[in-house]
């Protein structure tokens, strides 16, 4: 009974259970020899999904229809512009970071301005915005790959006590997001808005302000992620964010955040991010062709959600 309750209260446990089993199956292939390498790789790449996932989660928490489709374009533009500005000089690293944060804030502002002024569903507003942002990225650099400053590149690719630096950054951001969500008024507010915007308004919550901040937060996180990813992979590419459109949504929902809004959790994002990376690695390791790999990925996602999803029926 008690264990059952724990599972009900902590839906993210399922994504970790799934992650652990996939991990075990993968390292079994080499009889365990790959465990360290695989874990490090998983932490590294999960970190990027976690960072964008957190932002997307805040937005999704705002309620049905709230989603930010401009994440990939924001990542691309941020990476492109920051790397261009830093122009491989170590002294500009901080300036680049500030630029990408500002950029995220502006894009978030733009997103919410469209949603608010044109009264259009976020899904379309952010899609339109993403086209414009993507064009700006093309226009600024025409897809030329500029290298990151040496120090930044080595920071993003190295690790501390075996834990990749990017994973540490993601962990710190997660802890911060967790505090925001669980302990602050802001966290309560977005959850309230997600359940009923009108009721939130009548409870004295500044709904528009809160939503604006949330969209800005999401864009800033995407922007920072773009900055890190571009530095990590040795330069910004115009298509570098594409992968993260579905990924950012997938890690949020697989991690147990209610898509209807009003309910969210951070640990689940980690579980789901690791899971998404490890599933592909596992299927690659066992040598499945692209077709079967896709099918199995899909079935595994559904399986995880099937096992974890039963919780919602008890209230």
């Amino acid at each position: 009974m008690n264990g059952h309750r724990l599972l009900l209260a902590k839906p993210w446990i399922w994504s970790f259970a799934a992650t652990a089993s996939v991990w075990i199956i993968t390292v079994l292939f080499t009889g365990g020899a790959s465990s360290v390498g695989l874990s490090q790789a998983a932490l590294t790449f999960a970190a990027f999904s976690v960072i964008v996932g957190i932002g997307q989660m805040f937005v999704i928490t705002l309620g049905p229809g709230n989603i930010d489709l401009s994440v990939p374009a924001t990542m691309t533009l941020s990476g492109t512009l920051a790397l261009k500005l830093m122009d491989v000089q170590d002294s500009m690293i901080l300036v680049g970071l500030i630029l990408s944060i500002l950029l995220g804030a502006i894009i978030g502002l733009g997103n919410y301005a469209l949603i608010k002024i044109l009264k259009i569903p976020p899904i379309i507003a952010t899609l339109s915005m993403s086209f414009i942002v993507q064009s700006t990225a093309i226009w600024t650099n025409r897809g030329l790959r500029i290298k990151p400053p040496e120090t930044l590149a080595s920071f993003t690719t190295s690790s501390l006590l075996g834990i990749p630096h990017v994973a540490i950054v993601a962990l710190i951001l997660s802890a911060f997001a967790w505090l925001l969500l669980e302990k602050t008024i802001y966290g309560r507010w977005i959850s309230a808005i997600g359940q009923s915007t009108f009721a939130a308004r009548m409870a004295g919550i500044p709904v528009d302000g809160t939503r604006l901040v949330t969209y800005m937060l999401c864009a800033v996180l995407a922007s920072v992620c773009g900055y890190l990813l571009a530095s990590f992979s040795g330069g910004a590419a115009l298509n570098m964010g594409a992968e993260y459109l579905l990924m950012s949504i997938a890690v949020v929902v697989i991690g147990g955040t209610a898509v209807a809004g009003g309910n969210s959790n951070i640990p689940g994002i980690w579980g789901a991010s690791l899971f998404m990376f490890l599933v592909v690695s596992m299927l690659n390791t066992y040598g499945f062709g692209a077709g079967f790999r896709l099918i199995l990925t899909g079935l595994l996602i559904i399986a995880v959600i099937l096992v974890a999803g039963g919780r919602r029926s008890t209230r």
Partner: protein
Amino acid sequence: DTAGKKIALSNNYAGNSWRQAMLTSWDKITKDAVAKGVVAAADPFTTAENQATEQAAQIQNLILQGYDAIVVNAASPTALNGAIKEACDAGITVVSFDGIVTEPCAWRIAVDFKAMGESQIEYLAKKLPKGGNLLEIRGLAGVSVDDEIHAGIQAGVQKNPQFKIVGSVNGDWAQDVAQRAVAGILPSLPEIAAVVTQGGDGYGAAQAFAAAKRPTPTFVMGNREDELVWWKQQKDKNGYETMSVSIAPGVSTLAFWVAQQILDGKEVKKDLVVPFLRIDQDNLEANLAKTQKGGVANVEYSLEDAQKVISAAK
């Protein structure tokens, strides 16, 4: 005389450096041609998303706009056939390149992708006569170029059984995806002798190998500047050897001239072939010097080049 003719470029994707270089080359050559009065207009069009359906709609719009020729880099060799047929029926000359179409009424400037794949193994067979394990980084599943290069690589491996593909991942032709996929499979792989790629993934793969602290295998490169720079660094450091092969983005300009020649009433065979652009150990520096920072090794074509290609096909 084609001074009154209008040519359009139909492009389906602008999201990587190769396509950007292609558009830049087009811009450079056609602006000049328009200024000199060779043609009346040469407008490029790009769709927002890399989808055959969107490009088909784009081609239909180009028909409506009354272009005399459409130069197409197709998202799919077959899915545009409906729209291409309509263009031909409307009397429009259609020239496809890079991503070619199978519709018989269109011209094709093809690159033998299968041979490109095979050439990688042939090179490796010479460099590593003992053979060894290969990691293959493929492109986007379900796209013909991916399938053709893969077929070439497989054919090569069959001919050289000392090589064995021990791992294969899809990098979707995106640096970060390739890096991610390689990092995920690498811990489980035995010693890798060489990595065969489809273009542009060499640098990301090298990063992943370095991160996993694995010995550096032979990466077959795809003509991107960052790959060439990395290669140059390794070469200077320890005499690292490899090769690099890809199709030159400037082939769009060849397609432009071919279209112009057809509009001019020249007899042109439906199937033309351009060689892929290959960089080797000895001409690395020369090519690197010519390549724009952060761009792709490129060749642009002139009218004379185009006439040579056309007459060679006869």
